[in-house]
């Protein structure tokens, strides 16, 4: 809901409401607020940098803030970049919270129960499962870097600075892991067409069903209201 809400709505208002009204309370209740913020930052950083550079320096605008060589940084471009980055961060935070609180096996089993193909269910489950794996890998990489002298503790600035050297190894490591998982699944006939008899299915209470419909209705209202 928060991911789609941030995607649908422009500006700062709706994405920030999604963040403060849905994602942050959820993450706080789950005791994952700092972890969600950290992973969302990691996930959104690479694309935020490219969006920021392109928008700030190439988007047309009347108010020039500063000039670097042939490039003008405009207020309009900066504002646009900030809006996109806020939306990206909210979407990443919502997905991260979903990933950290949803066991991939439950998602995959539930999707398959509803008729989704095992392959598609696996792809979606892998996306969800990738987030806790990302957290774990970032811990390992950080420990390795710390053992070689990288200072990652202290002030917020220093801690955020400590996140930057993680981005490359963590993301590249994730790609390698996807390759290994694909191979592991293919070695176990995962792509076989036809019926699979699942060993279990996650429970789905009336309250959960009602919450889903409520969120869906909220999303439709938001989409109509922000058109």
């Amino acid at each position: 809901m928060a991911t789609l809400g941030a995607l649908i709505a422009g500006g700062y208002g709706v994405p920030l409401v999604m963040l403060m009204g849905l994602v942050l309370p959820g993450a706080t209740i789950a005791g994952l607020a700092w972890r969600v913020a950290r992973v969302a930052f990691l996930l959104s950083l690479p694309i935020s940098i490219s969006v920021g550079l392109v928008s700030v320096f190439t988007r047309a605008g009347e108010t020039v803030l500063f000039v670097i060589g042939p490039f003008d940084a405009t207020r309009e471009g900066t504002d646009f970049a900030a809006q996109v980055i806020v939306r990206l961060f909210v979407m990443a935070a919502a997905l991260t919270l979903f990933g950290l609180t949803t066991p991939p096996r439950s998602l995959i089993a539930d999707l398959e129960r509803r008729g989704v193909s095992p392959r598609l269910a696996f792809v979606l489950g892998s996306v969800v499962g990738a987030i806790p794996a990302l957290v774990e890998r970032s811990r390992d990489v950080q420990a390795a870097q710390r053992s070689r002298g990288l200072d990652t503790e202290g002030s917020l600035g220093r801690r955020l600075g400590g996140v930057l050297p993680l981005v490359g190894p963590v993301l590249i490591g994730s790609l390698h892991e996807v390759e290994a998982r694909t191979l592991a699944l293919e070695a176990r006939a995962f792509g076989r067409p036809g019926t699979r008899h699942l060993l279990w299915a996650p429970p789905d209470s009336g309250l959960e069903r009602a919450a889903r419909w409520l969120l869906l209705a909220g999303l439709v209202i938001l989409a109509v209201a922000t058109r």
Partner: protein
Amino acid sequence: MTLELRGVSYRYPGYRRRALESVDLRVGEGAIVGLTGRNEAGKSTLCLVASGLAPASIGGELAGDVLVDGESLRVLRTHELAARVGIVFVNPASQLSGITGTVFEEVALGPVNLGLAVAETVARTRAALAAVAIEDLAERAPNRLSGGQTQLVAIASMLAMRPRHLVLDEPVAELDLEGRRLVVEALRALASGGTAMLVAEHDRELLAALDARIVTIADGRIAVPA
């Protein structure tokens, strides 16, 4: 139940040099062939090629042919390959699917994918867990195991599929003596049922315990045939 490589040469994608060169190898019904050689001699590559994952999943260029029971792996799709030839990877952690919550589900994943009925899947899974004595791990999370436990889970996950041909890449590298004994027993039992097995292994003692016919590979070529 035979697994045969005929004049097999293989090159990984993006590499000019061939990792395997003109390899001829036959593993007959119920036979265990032990593949030895130094690091980077081509053992793991040969395992991937013999299982069909290279080039089917990994890509690369294959010359010659790999035959299972006389049928070329080239004509089989990846899920058909998996049903015919099982493989245990050198790194047991990379054998884990990452989509299961317990060891039981992890071991059961193969039989579930084969479309077996629930009762059959459960029976095979229990038997596979018992074969390597890890029943007590059944409810544990697969990603929270020691290296040795993960290796046993990886082997059990293949045993549960009951492949007619099995390729194992250093299957006991992370195991203690008891774990090795259990794996040897399980593999011997499989072989006595007719499964053709190729075991890449540095440890000659293990291969001797398996009564394996030993083949040595060097620089991608079979240096010392059986």
